[in-house]
């Protein structure tokens, strides 16, 4: 039997069977190919992070950040060194002064005294008498002894020429006369003598002098008026009538040298033309009022000049040298009036510049107009002419007065009431991010301070018209009152400084800034001397107005639903692969005065919302009446990606996350106004608890 079994037991088959047994034939249950992924869903809790946000750490060192050194409150302060620089020229300037021209006409001038005489000896006369009378007188001359002087019947006595006059050639008199004196050397009384005085060439009658009853050795004078007459320096006179009763019976010596002497001399003559020897003479002073021009009817009382000139340009048509004396009694330097003399050459143009550097011009001496006027007194002196000079009374000096290089130190006066508009400027505030965060922020206590440095000595009123506008047409005006800029009390005072402040007490600044505006339209008006002439205005050469801006925006605010967030690509199927449920826990201790809500919005590939999670994340710290957090608030928040929601969530391809912040809602319906301090902090412990499907995490 054993033998049979062994023999029938094929050794090869035994070997194969053993091998098969040893290698094993796995049951289906244990075949690797039948294993499916485990359905385990372990959950794991993980501490993600401990976030300790201290505001003090978040605040970067920024020039605009302001931390109050006393209470550590936080705000933003930004300064603009110069937002307005008002030039002096906007208030006052010295315009280019128009030249002032004054003409000094020569007029009538005096001439040197002159005279001439001619003797008509008896022998010369007898030749011009009728022969009988002539013979009678000759016989008496020839008798050698006194005989009665024969009567001379009325008749002409001949024409005689006077010696030439050297003081002029020919002149036209405007005034005065020529005195004619006759000295009777005849030894008889001349009952009448008529003299006709004439220019010699061409002969023209100047006048007739009538004498009567001139006793022997006596004289008589007559004046011939010459006003309006032209007289030459060579004159003839004719004895058109001469008569004498004779001595009758009384013998009278008679000699042929006995003469009738005719003498002429000027009497108060003034010449208005002709060729004369001009004597030295003074003209009356002439006062010219210089009207100091202003641009806008400013009334200038005093100008203290740093530099400047007064220029005289003199055109002379007078044929002799003239010396002008210029006196400016109200223009002083060191208390002394400024005077000057100018020599005007004959028929020449002369320029003269008088420096006014350091001078003070008083423009108040005209009682009728006690501003803008100062006198310039000009007097002239004619120097005597060397020879004959042609003159005409219309000859003149044209004096043109002008100012150059006026540079003042100080101007005092009243500069008038002026309105200066500040051009509108539009400032794009670029606050789009405020719109992005949505909600509303009310800045409760912002302040804009304009720091003014003013060295213009005049009341200046600033009206700041500011308006915030939004794209959708809403607007809020600043509605700030006009404010007067500080100004110095006197020219020697330092520039006045001081702030113009706009805040919640005098404007709608909080509402304007809290819109928030897209653009800020800024305009305004400056009014000089808004109350009229209330006192002395003054400027100096470096007067100016500088306005710097300081905006103080303390973080004293209320907020409602301001949101920070972003939209990110979020392939949920990939990012949340294997996660069947997740819970994020926030254990918070909040020292900030804000409630914070978390919102997660899952969007599919069509940007359609597939799931939304909203949860209050952080509760505001407890705030006292001043808006300061006194006690932090502890809260526990869990954000759940629920198992039931995961199918929808896994469709998401984008994730919008938002953090909404609000200050507490008061019973009145308003939001609590809070203040931000550097010691605020938020401690947030983030933990994640995720349930994962292990099978999903195992690769194929």
């Amino acid at each position: 039997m054993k033998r049979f079994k062994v023999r029938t037991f094929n050794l090869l088959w035994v070997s194969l069977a053993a091998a098969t047994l040893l290698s094993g034939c796995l049951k289906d249950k244990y075949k690797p190919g039948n294993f499916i992924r485990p359905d385990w869903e372990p959950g794991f809790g993980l501490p993600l992070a401990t976030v300790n946000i201290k505001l003090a750490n978040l605040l970067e060192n920024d020039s605009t950040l302001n931390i109050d050194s006393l209470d550590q409150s936080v705000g933003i302060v930004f300064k603009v060194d110069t937002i307005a620089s008002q030039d002096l020229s906007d208030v006052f300037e010295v315009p280019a002064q128009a030249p002032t021209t004054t003409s000094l006409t020569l007029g009538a001038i005096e001439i040197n005294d002159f005279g001439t005489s001619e003797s008509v000896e008896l022998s010369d006369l007898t030749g011009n008498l009728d022969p009988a009378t002539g013979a009678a007188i000759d016989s008496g001359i020839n008798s050698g002894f006194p005989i009665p002087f024969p009567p001379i019947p009325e008749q002409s006595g001949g024409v005689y020429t006077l010696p030439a006059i050297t003081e002029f050639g020919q002149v036209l008199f405007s005034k005065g006369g020529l005195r004619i004196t006759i000295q009777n050397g005849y030894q008889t009384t001349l009952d009448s003598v008529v003299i006709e005085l004439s220019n010699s060439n061409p002969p023209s009658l100047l006048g007739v002098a009538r004498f009567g009853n001139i006793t022997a050795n006596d004289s008589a004078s007559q004046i011939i008026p010459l006003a309006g007459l032209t007289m030459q320096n060579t004159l003839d006179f004719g004895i058109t009538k001469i008569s004498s009763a004779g001595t009758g019976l009384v013998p009278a010596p008679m000699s042929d040298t006995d003469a009738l002497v005719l003498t002429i001399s000027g009497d108060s003559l003034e010449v208005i033309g002709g060729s004369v020897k001009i004597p030295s003479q003074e003209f009356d002073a002439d006062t010219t009022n210089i009207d100091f021009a202003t641009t806008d009817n400013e009334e200038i009382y005093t100008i203290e000049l740093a530099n400047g000139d007064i220029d005289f340009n003199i055109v002379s048509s007078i044929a002799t040298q003239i010396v002008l004396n210029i006196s400016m009694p109200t223009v002083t330097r060191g208390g002394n009036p400024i005077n000057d003399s100018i020599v005007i050459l004959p028929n020449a143009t002369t320029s003269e510049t008088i420096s006014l550097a350091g001078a003070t011009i008083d423009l108040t001496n005209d009682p009728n107009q006690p501003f803008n006027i100062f006198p310039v007194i000009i007097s002239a002196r004619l120097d005597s002419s060397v020879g004959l000079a042609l003159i005409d009374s219309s000859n003149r000096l044209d004096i043109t007065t002008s100012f150059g290089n006026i540079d003042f130190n100080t101007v005092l006066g009243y500069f008038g009431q002026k309105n200066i508009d500040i051009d509108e400027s539009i400032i794009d505030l670029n606050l789009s991010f405020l719109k992005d965060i949505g909600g509303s922020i009310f800045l409760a206590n912002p302040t804009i301070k304009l720091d003014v440095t003013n060295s213009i000595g005049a009341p200046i009123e600033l009206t700041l018209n500011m308006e915030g506008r939004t794209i959708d047409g809403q607007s809020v005006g600043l509605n700030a009152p006009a404010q007067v800029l500080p100004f110095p009390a006197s020219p020697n005072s330092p520039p006045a400084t001081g702030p113009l402040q706009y805040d919640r007490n005098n404007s709608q600044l909080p509402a304007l800034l809290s819109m928030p505006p897209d653009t800020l339209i800024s305009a305004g008006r400056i009014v000089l001397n808004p109350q009229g002439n209330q006192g002395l205005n003054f400027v100096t050469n470096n007067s100016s107005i500088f306005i710097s801006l300081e905006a103080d925006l303390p973080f004293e605010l209320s907020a409602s639903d301001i949101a920070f967030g972003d939209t990110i690509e979020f392939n949920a199927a990939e990012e949340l692969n294997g996660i069947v449920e997740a819970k994020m826990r926030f254990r918070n201790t909040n020292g900030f005065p804000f409630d914070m809500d978390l919102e997660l919005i899952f969007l599919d590939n069509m940007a359609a919302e597939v799931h939304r999670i909203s949860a209050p994340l952080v509760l505001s710290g407890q705030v006292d009446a001043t808006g300061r957090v006194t006690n932090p608030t502890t809260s526990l928040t869990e954000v759940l990606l629920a198992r039931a929601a995961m199918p929808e969530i896994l469709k998401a391809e984008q994730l919008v996350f938002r953090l909404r912040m609000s200050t507490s809602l008061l019973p009145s319906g308003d939001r609590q106004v809070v203040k931000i301090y550097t010691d605020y902090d938020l401690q947030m412990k983030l933990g994640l608890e995720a349930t994962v499907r292990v099978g999903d995490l195992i690769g194929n």
Partner: protein
Amino acid sequence: MRKYILAVICLTTAYSAQAQFNLGMHQFTGVPQSTYTNPGILPQARFFIALPSVYVNYYNPTFVADDIIREVGDTASMLDFSKLYNENPGGTFGFNIEQQAELFHVGFRIKKKNFISFGAYQSLQTGVRLPVDLLRFVQEGSTSSYFQNNPVSLDGIDINIQSYVAYHIGFGRQFNEKWSGGLRVKFLNGLVGAGTEYSRGSLTMNMDSIRIASDFRYNTAGVQRLDNAFGFLGGDGIAGGFNVSEWFPSTGNTGMAFDLGVTYKPISKLIISASATDIGSINWQNSLLSFVSEEGEYVYRGGELGGADDGDPFAGIADSIQAAFNIQQIEGKAFTTQLNSRYIFSASYELLPNTFVGGIYSHNVFSGITYPAFTAFAQTKFWNLLFLRANYTVSSGTFDNLGGALAINLGPLQIFTVADNLMALADQGNVSSFNVRLGANLVFGMRKPRGKKNQDIDLD
């Protein structure tokens, strides 16, 4: 990654292969390798040359496949560790794997009563013990209700590995008709050794914190060889050249072991034997490397954010852990590992000519832990051509270990296979141990079958 996995497998397969019973070979004298369980039992062959053979043993006293595999529907299966960790909360699980490869083995009989053998084999013994909390952690996560009251235990992590080459020489003698005995001396060349000196730790993980406590020391020797092979310490790995020849020169980690055996035949059909094998140790004193942590605790509460100079909030975690535990890779101290000693007592009775029945008691002492096993067997042979044997073993509470042995002589060529638990093939889900030896020998001068003149103690 595969390199690391391979390295872990190597590390987790062995030192304590504590339950390699291999009792199917005991007294199976038709196969020369039977002397490995008792050098006092002389093989039947007068001369043999062992061809390369391999022995693999798997032993898992903590769970079977059905404990961790759940059927889903009719055709699908799924891993499920819940039974394992629910039935032994806070305990450990693990397994042992032993591998042995015979490199050469020669034996011959001298003057009929003496038998001398010598040879060499390579042995790899691994053992792994891990906390079952790790399985619960993986399957249920840190939010498990169990972990609300208990941390994840990391205590008792025990990973041992021992690999060596044994050069042995044995001598057996038939003293008389009743007694025989034998001695085998083994010179051991340790290749890789690693052991957990101590390991304690815990993990607590929730939304508030991750808390890790740990205190361990792992001693190793010769791991650079593994590194050279697999590169897990930064070596070149296989790409750097895996040369088996490097494994055989002396590593300086030497040891010695003995196998002793004796048989007594009080009556003609009864044979009683006793043996002690692998009595010895390896002194690991070269290429030592220890991984040591200080007893420490690391608590992670999440990244710190919100500072003014926040960088990467997680950048310092590795440094923090390092600081907490001060994990160091230091030059290790010498250590000694014992081989897995076994004490075997057996008795057999020749029920029929060439057919024996018997029983074996195996007392296995591994790291101070005793693993007893009892085997009943029956074996026979058909001429000197076919050797058959059936075993039934009870060990570690398992009663379904039905094994067998088979040897076929094809002339001088002998092919053999021995398995302790053939039931594993039928009830794969309840296998806690399984070993198999496959090999071939060249055997010469097999002794005549029973009935012929035979004075030796002979079990064939």
